[in-house]
């Protein structure tokens, strides 16, 4: 397989060191209960990781960063933009991959799916078609152009979602537990595609193994950041804590 980098990702558009994610005293409430509180996070790292248990507020954080939710308190700025208010900037700045590709794929065929976001960005039909071809080729999948999505496997659908989002050339790609339920070969293959993309990544996961390659890691617990640093520093403590919790029985506690 060619080791060709995703076209257009090299160059001034994407490697500004001053691209930063800034969360200042971020809070989010749902149904009267705080999901996130007092989250302050400043990072310009190329690969950021967020680790935490299920229910720690990771998915909410992903959506706040993508501008899909408005914070109850505090501020979110990605690359200097308020992505919740400025959806046009959001389309240029951030892309988000959700856990379940079934929930993200809107069109019946692969080429239409990839072209959708491009048309939303304002590209005309011909430009969108050209970009779709380029993306498919950079992923070595030109034969997928007219493939029906219903005929694809789970891992292939993940790849289509990835192509559709990366085609929009976001400066930051947010991954909300992208490997859930995938087998080892599929994980490794998808991971390789992500690595090649050269976009900044923010990877959210409950699985420590997924986040070892990050430059900076944040541990989110019950809506607050409890630790941050290099993966080698944070992950052992995280794993130990998770094992300790596994010896208890907090699964018995009801949310209400």
């Amino acid at each position, binding site marked *: 397989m060619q080791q060709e980098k995703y076209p257009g990702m090299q160059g001034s558009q994407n490697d500004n060191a001053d691209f930063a994610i800034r969360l200042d005293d971020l809070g989010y409430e749902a149904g009267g209960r705080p999901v996130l509180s007092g989250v302050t996070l400043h990072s310009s790292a190329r690969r950021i990781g967020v680790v935490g248990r299920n229910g720690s507020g990771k998915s909410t954080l992903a959506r706040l960063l993508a501008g899909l939710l408005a914070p109850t308190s505090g501020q979110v700025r990605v690359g200097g933009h308020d992505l919740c208010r400025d*959806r046009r900037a959001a389309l240029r700045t951030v892309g988000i991959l959700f856990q379940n590709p079934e929930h993200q794929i*809107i069109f019946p065929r692969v080429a*239409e799916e990839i072209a959708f976001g491009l048309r939303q960005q304002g590209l005309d039909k011909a430009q969108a078609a050209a970009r779709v071809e380029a993306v498919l080729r950079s992923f070595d999948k030109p034969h997928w152009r007219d493939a029906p999505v219903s005929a694809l496997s789970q891992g292939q659908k993940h790849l289509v979602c990835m192509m559709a989002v990366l085609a929009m050339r976001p400066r930051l790609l947010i991954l909300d537990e992208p490997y859930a339920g995938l087998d080892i070969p599929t994980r490794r293959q998808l991971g390789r595609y992500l690595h090649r993309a050269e976009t900044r990544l923010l990877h959210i996961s409950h699985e420590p193994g997924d986040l070892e390659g990050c430059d900076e890691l944040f541990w989110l617990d019950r809506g607050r950041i409890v630790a941050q640093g290099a993966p080698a520093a944070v992950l052992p403590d995280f794993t130990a804590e998770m094992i300790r919790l596994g010896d208890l029985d907090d699964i018995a506690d009801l949310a209400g």
Partner: protein
Amino acid sequence: MISLTSPVETRAHRWPAGLKLGALCLASTGLFLVPGLAVHAGALAAVLALYAAPGPVFLRAGLGSLRVVLPFVVILLAWHALTGDMRQGLLITLRMVTLVALANLVTMTTPLEDLVALIRRLTAPLRRMGLPTGALEIAVPLVIRFTPVLVLRAETLAEAWRARSRRRPGWRLILPLTLQALDDADHVGEALRARGGALGPSGSE
């Protein structure tokens, strides 16, 4: 009746969608205005010839999607046989099959994005009035995309039922299926928003 565009390329694939739909409109109106049994039989034969023109693969696919009409044909003919008006029954049946076949032909030879673009053009007056037509444009691909997904969900629910009961699953699955569909709708809506929304590339929502 919801079939995808045929991978078999025909000359009709390149004709403008508006032209094909307009012709469909005219043909439908024409068939309703003409009472002759012979004319209708001829029309059906002509449409079938159109199906056969691009080759056996196209014909097989086309006839396959027409199978949906079969139960209606049977019911209509049986009813009219009972009421003693076979001629009317045949007329209605022929007309129905011809029109469905014609409509299916348009679907099979029109790429989805052409249809969506056509809807966009037709709803331009509505946009000028300030109405958000992006939702209409996206509705067509969404239906095509999610119909098989919902069918699969129904099958999975039926499986879950059969794993714990010897009785056949029935109306009790409707509520969980609906809830799952609503859930799916929520998620898809979110994914839509994340890539620009259904309101078109106008920027601010």
